[in-house]
């Protein structure tokens, strides 16, 4: 579904964030992206929906090149790709419901969204998304009154409104404690398994990668260092990715109970 070829991103300040990155993603994959801070994980995810403009290279979405696409076409692609963030990126002062409904902005006409008069079917869709995330009673709450884990679940509900084929997750659990991290990743796992939504998720902790991902992309200095199943990351590969001094820090000491 996604084919990235020779993707390069150089920021205006001269930093090379991605250097000739190529890979393909198939439907229903749970792809983890690992690497040190600054290795290009966020830039890679943001290039795919062009929140960051690639410098060169190709990104093919079902055969269509996203790079160089005009904004109207791009918006049609973006709405098929959900995104969740480390800082959740909810509008804090708005209600949970409004935040979730904003996931629908790529579909509804501005005549509906600008005055904020959402039709019943969209509200029901939002209610279903919130129900799925176990947040039925929070629809009217202000987003910033929710805990971190709840806010991330609102983030996922917002992404679900897009009926996405792919969810880009940029360090979705880095701001959460280990128990909540597992809860969020289990939600993503469930969407991957039950809905067939492809997941591309940058992660910090290797044990989470082993537990949830079925493929790993390791980045170092903007280049792909490793692309394969998690079990192939042995001690040597680990040192290669994270440097000689690195220790394998785990998010949890015991395996989280499954489901």
């Amino acid at each position, binding site marked *: 579904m996604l084919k990235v070829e020779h993707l390069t991103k150089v920021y205006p300040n001269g930093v090379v964030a991605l250097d000739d990155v190529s890979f393909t993603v198939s439907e229903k994959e749970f792809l983890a992206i690992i690497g040190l801070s600054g290795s290009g994980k966020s830039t890679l995810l943001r290039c795919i929906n062009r929140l960051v403009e690639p410098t060169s290279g190709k990104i093919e979405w079902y055969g269509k090149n996203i790079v160089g696409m005009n904004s109207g076409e791009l918006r049609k692609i973006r709405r098929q790709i*959900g995104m969740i963030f480390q800082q959740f990126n909810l509008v804090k002062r708005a209600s949970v419901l409004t935040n979730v409904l904003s996931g629908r902005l790529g579909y509804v006409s501005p005549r509906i969204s600008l005055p904020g008069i959402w039709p019943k079917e969209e509200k029901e869709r939002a209610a279903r998304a919130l129900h799925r995330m176990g947040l039925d009673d929070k629809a009217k709450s202000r987003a910033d009154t929710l805990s971190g884990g709840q806010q991330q679940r609102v983030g996922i509900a917002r992404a679900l409104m897009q009926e996405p084929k792919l969810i880009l997750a940029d360090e979705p659990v880095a701001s959460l404690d280990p128990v909540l991290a597992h809860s969020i990743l289990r939600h993503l796992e469930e969407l991957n398994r039950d809905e067939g939504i492809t997941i591309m998720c940058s992660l910090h902790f290797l044990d989470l990668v082993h537990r949830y991902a079925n493929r790993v992309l390791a980045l170092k200095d903007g280049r792909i260092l490793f692309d394969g199943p998690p079990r192939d990351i042995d001690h040597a590969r680990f040192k290669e990715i994270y440097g000689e001094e690195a220790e394998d820090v785990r998010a949890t000491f015991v395996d989280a109970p499954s489901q």
Partner: protein
Amino acid sequence: MPPSPRPPAPRLIRLTLVTLAIVTVYVVSLRETEIDLPALATGFPNGITLVRDFLTPDVAVRETANSSVGLDFPVPCGSAPEEEVPESGPRIIPSDPCGEVGATIIVEGVGLGAGADVSLWWILQGISDQRLRAARVTTDSEGYFQTTVEIRPIVATKEGKASKLTAEITSEVGVLRPSPALLETVDAAILTVFMALIATSMAAIFAVPLSFLAAANITRHGGFGSAIYYVTRAYLNITRTFEPLVLATIFGLWVGFGAFAGVLALAVFTVGSLGKLYSEAVESIDPGPVEAVRATGAGPVETIFYAVIPQVIPQFTSFSVYHWDINVRISTIIGFVGGGGIGFLLNQRLRTFSYHKAGTAILAIVLVVSLLDFFSAAVRKRAT
């Protein structure tokens, strides 16, 4: 090798030169500003008088009641029947019951109420609309007055009808009530608050869209966007430098001096000022939600509505209320050049030397400004 210390001589020379330059600047400034410290002492009594007038503002008057007492006074004697002075009650007592033209009599008043204003009239030949003022006095604390009255030829008895010597008494009774000057001041103060409100609102309508165009994080993408950004920014900066006083004069000549000219002057100035404040609020938003909403496929306008506006509403509100507060102050000054409102009233009263009434206006300005300051502080506190 350690750095060699600076040779001391050039340093000393430089220090001396700088000191000399600073001293020269101050000497020249003091002379040019005509600092005249003795004037502070010699003019002190004038200043104090004015301040005392300001501190006793004209805010209240008592209800007044009018009454009159009078009696026929034949001129010359015998031309008409003399009238007897009553024994008791409010009454006036002439020293003679009648008189000759050219003579002077003494008139006393008794029982007229303390501190009353008394106008003494001749009602000529008893015809009520033909009258001649004889004297004007104020009664003492016993309700008594005494004054001299000259008998002029016009008061002479005609056709057997004597002129009536009458005292019209205006006395303060009842409770204090707001003085006309106070009522006028309150009207003007309310007008000023409304002027500032309308000017701020009008300005906000223009400033909101302009502020988005002048926010780097919204507009400054690509060549076209940057051009809009710089043009809007320049426009806001230029209008912000317009002096409201000058604008008020221009608009005064344009649409006629008064409240409308004041509102226009304030509004033009406020567009620049609010636009700048708003745009800085827009630039300081959390970019995260904007990124998230863009990622859903939302267009630029939808992104502004769903990710930017909710973030800036509290700041926009508090800036607007704050500017309303500022505009009340400015419109007071604008009133001096004919912008209407309380400033205009104050200027008028100062020019006519009605310092007690000017004091009323000053008191109103102090109250309105403090109240609005308090209000705007409360709103700003709640909004954040």
